[in-house]
């Protein structure tokens, strides 16, 4: 199994340099987990006493190292979830609210310093397209055997 982590670290640097710090942090959390993948999920009974089953069942997840392709998908899925999916949801919300009100409704985020961050629906369409390309490119790059291994 080839580890993609060195390339993921390059990706994290690229993201951080461009200000995508929450996304970079999410990927780093994935690295902290060793880019491991769930192999199975099963229910087991807890709090058993005197041979009686507890009423509560907890999910137990066992982990195993992912293959190169799986690790690449793991990281690119994070990018999709954190980068593209939010925009798709924002687009949908803006469309719904505008339809309800019968006029364009602009969505603004209140930033950490209470600054207003507008959401541009037209720009978002382009970002979604570019983001889809990005995720595809990422997955190819992370999973590729050639192009020189990163030391």
């Amino acid at each position, binding site marked *: 199994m080839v580890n993609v982590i060195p390339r993921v670290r390059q990706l994290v640097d690229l993201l951080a340099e461009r200000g995508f710090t929450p996304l970079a942090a999410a990927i780093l959390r994935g690295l902290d987990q060793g880019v491991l993948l769930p192999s199975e999920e099963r229910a087991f009974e807890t709090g058993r006493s005197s041979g009686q089953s507890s009423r509560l069942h907890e999910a137990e997840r066992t982990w195993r190292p992912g293959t190169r392709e799986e690790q690449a998908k793991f990281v690119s899925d994070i990018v999709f979830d954190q980068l593209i999916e939010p925009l798709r949801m924002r687009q949908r*919300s803006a469309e719904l609210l505008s339809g309800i009100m019968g006029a364009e409704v602009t969505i603004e985020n209140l930033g950490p310093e209470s600054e207003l961050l507008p959401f541009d629906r037209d720009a978002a369409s382009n970002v979604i397209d570019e983001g889809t390309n990005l995720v595809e490119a990422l997955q190819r790059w992370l999973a590729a055997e050639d192009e020189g291994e990163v030391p």
Partner: protein
Amino acid sequence: MLKQIGQLLDGISGASVTLQATNGAGRHFELLVIAEIADELHKRGYQIQLISSDGIRQSTAVGPLVYRQRGGAPAPVPAASQGANGPTSIRFRSPVTGQEWEIWNGVEFEGRSGGHHEFDVAIVPQGLASAVRTTGGSPLGNGWVSIECKHVADAASPDEARALIARIYDTTILTGHCHHFRPKYLPARIYPPDPALPGYGTSATTFRERNVAGYAALVRTTGFSTGAAALADGYFIIRHGSIAIGSAALSAFRSEIADWIDANL
């Protein structure tokens, strides 16, 4: 390849400052849930209005319509005197009862312990919403609807259900509690932060009665572990999993909550 990825990121970062500031998709998911509820109510004949944080109803005759979503940590409701740049709420009016309600996002409610608890989505009476905006602050009690939204990759853990149950427990004001918190007034379900003002709604006698009568839900993009499902079901917390844009699960959620609102608000 690395250069190409960098270029794609450059294009994205230049087009959307929101993405750089957002902390994951959580807030976006919450707004999606709110917009879907509002859309379903609108289709059922409810009148929908956008209310700015100064309490003024937005109108195209006055200016462009804007939905401002709270960012960062959860917070109390800002006072109307702080202006219109705070978070927007959505007001709806029942075509049958004429009652008006507001949908809040990410507002902190005060519990009996004195602790504060955020509900991602809450529905409260319009009168209470206006009273809270008069001074700003957190209402004592909880809303008629309380929803926790989760845009995460893993199934809900038992702790996620426990957290919502604990929030609801602490913010549930029963008849027996009312004389302690607002001795001057009749028992109510929720009170404005100003102790000089009366409460709204009818208080319940038992936690079970309140849990059954209210609409508390976990709405998630993924599913529920067995333990989380057992806890939620045991306390009448409604579970909606696999919610995604255009999904059958989302349609089912829209119908269910609108049916509940039709019947109860």
